[in-house]
């Protein structure tokens, strides 16, 4: 979920290593075994799941998954808590560079966006495997196209959808009367309320997503953002309005834009303490969930922007050299089960929206979802507004690097 760029140079390097015969590309083989064979091979395996560990509720959910795996499948799940998903990508890359083609230290990665794009490009992934998972058939691939296309890159069965995300803005209704309805209105709001808004420093994913939202709204033609970056001149032309916008916005941010919170949870703490009035979230139910966990005041509500906000899907993938690929597939399958998805969507636990299609579930399974509370601060689905597509990953790489140059000095 947390993402960071994996620039060209390392890819070239890996490609070079490959041509020199230092390491071969992964044998990209389609998973052909039956589900029964996979489940029995998984018995007794230990799965090291590398997943961002910055949110206590998510960690608790992953721990719950671990309990279920032990009881139902005799699979031991270990959560390797990452501060940045790129760390795991970097580890797999380093292992291949060292010629470690099996017995790798990462079995499962929580991933999407450019980390997935980079791993796919580099043949660092196991599979295609999702077609072998029984629960994949329940996924709403028709109405949630981002379960098959991740940041414009086709998933090709190399990652299993786990949850849905949509950019929204929790705010304290006790202090905010009127909320901004577009990116330009954010600037007006910040100028009227200096010091009351901020965003996490990129490459923290919420910060990068805010930048992308601004880029989409401000760019001269957003259709090009769905294509890879073509040239420096194009980047310059498309991002100039973004930098002009940020130059005006920053002096009106929390701490005068001199410093930024490290990530989503830090920002949520600022809202709770009353240091800011508006924060950013990628999960429409996060605010409700935080209220239930006494992490935000009861007066917090959420809003979205009129012309839509960025939405995407997050996945789990298996590295090519995973030590416990079968165990990892069993975990991935369980994550897509109605039971696991319903627990995940409950705002009292995590509140992460499901990837499943209600029409594909049995009445009993549907009931699990229908009885879930919506949460006091969560917008109902018909008020969440249009979903904007993620730009191609190369755009994010460029704006993150430029942001560092301009503002982190």
């Amino acid at each position: 979920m947390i993402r960071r760029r994996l620039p060209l140079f390392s890819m070239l390097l890996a490609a070079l290593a490959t041509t020199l015969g230092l390491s071969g590309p992964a044998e990209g083989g389609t998973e052909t075994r039956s589900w029964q064979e996979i489940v029995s091979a998984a018995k007794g395996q230990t799965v090291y799941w590398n997943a961002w560990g910055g949110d206590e509720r998510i960690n608790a959910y992953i721990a719950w998954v671990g309990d279920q795996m032990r009881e139902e499948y005799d699979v031991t799940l270990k959560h390797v808590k990452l501060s940045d998903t790129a760390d795991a990508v970097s580890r797999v890359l380093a292992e291949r560079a060292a010629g470690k083609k099996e017995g790798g230290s990462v079995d499962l990665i929580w991933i999407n966006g450019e980390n997935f794009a980079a791993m796919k490009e580099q043949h660092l992934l196991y599979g295609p495997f999702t077609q072998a998972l029984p629960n994949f058939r329940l996924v709403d691939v028709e109405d949630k196209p981002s379960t098959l296309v991740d940041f414009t890159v086709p998933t090709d069965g190399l990652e299993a959808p786990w949850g849905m995300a949509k950019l929204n803005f929790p705010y304290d209704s006790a202090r905010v009367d009127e909320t901004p309805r577009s990116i330009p209105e954010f600037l007006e709001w910040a100028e009227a309320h200096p010091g009351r808004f901020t965003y996490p420093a990129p490459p923290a994913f919420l910060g990068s997503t805010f930048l992308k939202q601004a880029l989409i709204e401000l760019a001269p033609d957003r259709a090009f953002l769905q294509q890879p970056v073509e040239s420096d001149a194009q980047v310059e032309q498309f991002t100039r309005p973004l930098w002009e916008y940020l130059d005006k916005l920053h002096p009106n941010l929390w701490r005068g834009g001199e410093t930024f919170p490290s990530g989503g949870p830090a920002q949520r703490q600022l809202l709770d303490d009353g240091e800011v009035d508006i924060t950013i979230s990628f999960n429409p139910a996060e605010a409700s969930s935080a209220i239930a966990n006494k992490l935000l005041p009861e007066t917090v509500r959420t809003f979205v922007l009129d012309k839509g906000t960025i939405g995407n899907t997050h996945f789990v993938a298996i590295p090519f050299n995973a030590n416990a690929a079968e165990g990892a597939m069993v975990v991935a399958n369980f994550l897509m089960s109605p039971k696991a998805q319903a627990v995940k969507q409950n705002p009292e636990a995590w509140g992460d929206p499901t990837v499943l299609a209600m029409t594909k579930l049995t009445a009993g399974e549907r009931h699990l979802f229908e009885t879930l509370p919506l949460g006091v601060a969560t917008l109902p689905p018909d008020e969440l507004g249009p979903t904007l597509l993620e730009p191609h990953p190369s755009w994010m790489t460029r704006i993150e690097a430029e942001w560092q140059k301009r503002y982190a000095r």
Partner: protein
Amino acid sequence: MRRRGLLSSLPAITLAAFLAPVVAGLIGTWLPAFGFFPTLGGESLTLAPWRELFAQPGLAESLRLTLISGLLATLLAFLLTVFFLAACHGGRLILAVRGLMAPLIAVPHAAVALGLAFLLAPSGWLVRLVSPWATGWDLPPDVATVQDPNALALTLALVVKEVPFLLLMTLAALEQVRAEERLAVARSLGYGPLVAWLKAVLPAVYRQIRLPLYAVLAFSLSVVDMALILAPLTPPPLAVQVLRWFNDPDLSMRFVAAAGACLQLLIVVGAIALWRLGETAVALAGRAWIAGGQRGGDGRIARAVSAGLVQGLVILAAAGLAAVALWSVTGRWRFPDALPADVSLDTWARHAPEAAAITATTLVTGLVAAGIALMLVVGCLENEQRRGLTLSNRALWLLYAPLLVPQVAFLFGTQVLAIQAGIDATWIALVWSHLLFVLPYVFLTLADPYRALDERYARTALCLGAKPNRVFWQVKLPMLLRPMLFALAVGFAVSVAQYLPTLFAGGGRFVTLTTEAVGLAAGGDRRVMGVYAFLQALLPLLAFAAALALPRPLVLTRRLEAIPA
């Protein structure tokens, strides 16, 4: 005699065990810094990594933060230590403070930093206590009191942690330089208490504390865990930035990171050289001042100020820990309430299973590392005594090497070695990496008491026909039990506090209370941070308490056994 052979080779084994990884790690860092790292395709020497390093945005700002916090913290801690000891010499306060210093040293840096953050932040406890009734603030002020642009919060935290260490080291040194006699002579010549100490004691005692002072300087310039909590992040101080480069998914950044790690080492070397120059200048000026013969007053103001500051630091650290403990049992605590609205053990209950597992990892690593260190150190000291050797000054420098070389400057190289040796992310790598830092402290703690033991006990036993080994087990060991347990507790506390070594050697698979607390500090939930920071502080304190309490029943049992039935 094989036994003897083993003992006499122990110093060599010990030195190798903890110097080899440092030296190899340094080489493994310097080579990539000049472009040589075949795994990543770097096969020739080049200055490109350095050029790229100096082209990194924000490098100058990172350096500024590193230098301000490192130099200022060391200078302040040193001045405070000296003036406090000089002004309050012989007073009851020193005894009281001395008792408090060991627990303060024991509390890991990250716990102190989190405590200070909970206390000093604009929404912290201090502001809550006086708001809104005194300040009129219903919302926290938009002022950076932690992660501030000049890293002053980090500087303060470093001073809080370093003053206790310097105080204890200086107090130990005072006994060696016969400070009482010097003072008596100076006082009889009419010098005031403060000036007498500064003119007659300081020049002698400074030589003794020079190395610990350099270690403080090196540590302050390269600290990572405290900086992650209290220093600004865009950009962060150099050591944190180097760590980020090492973790960059773009593997070509490893070259820049290696160059940055070398720059970190150069900064420490440069700062120590600068300090040495400062020493010379102060010595020159000081000699004239001493010869000038001013007697000075009764030092009342210096006493009041320095005593107030030292007590303030102790109170600050204690209040920080209290804030940590309070947050761990908080249900809801909104700004600007002075106290939590409700108190509950929910957070503890929810985290009990995981916290127990993490505590167990921390406990085992700490005990094994401290245990191995104790055995090696006792072996070396025993060998030294049996063969009538004394540690040269140069050997002492070697001992300080892991404390003087910044951790980021060699841990990367060490990690590469560990991967090649196939012990990356194993218990061996983890304990070994902790041992590098545990060993020097265990040695420093135990060496003086071990050497101070009246050798006539051993000689008498030998004259009665006991073999050296029996003398060791039956005479020396029981008499030295208390200092040994104390050294064990020190070693344990050092291990618990290790952040970077755990991160590098543990490969993400070993989570200790320190890595968990620092990881959670990136945001998250203050209640959960409270749980882990509290456990992190508690563990070393319990170890110290046990070291003080255990010898009594043990010694008592021995006495009872000695009574003929």
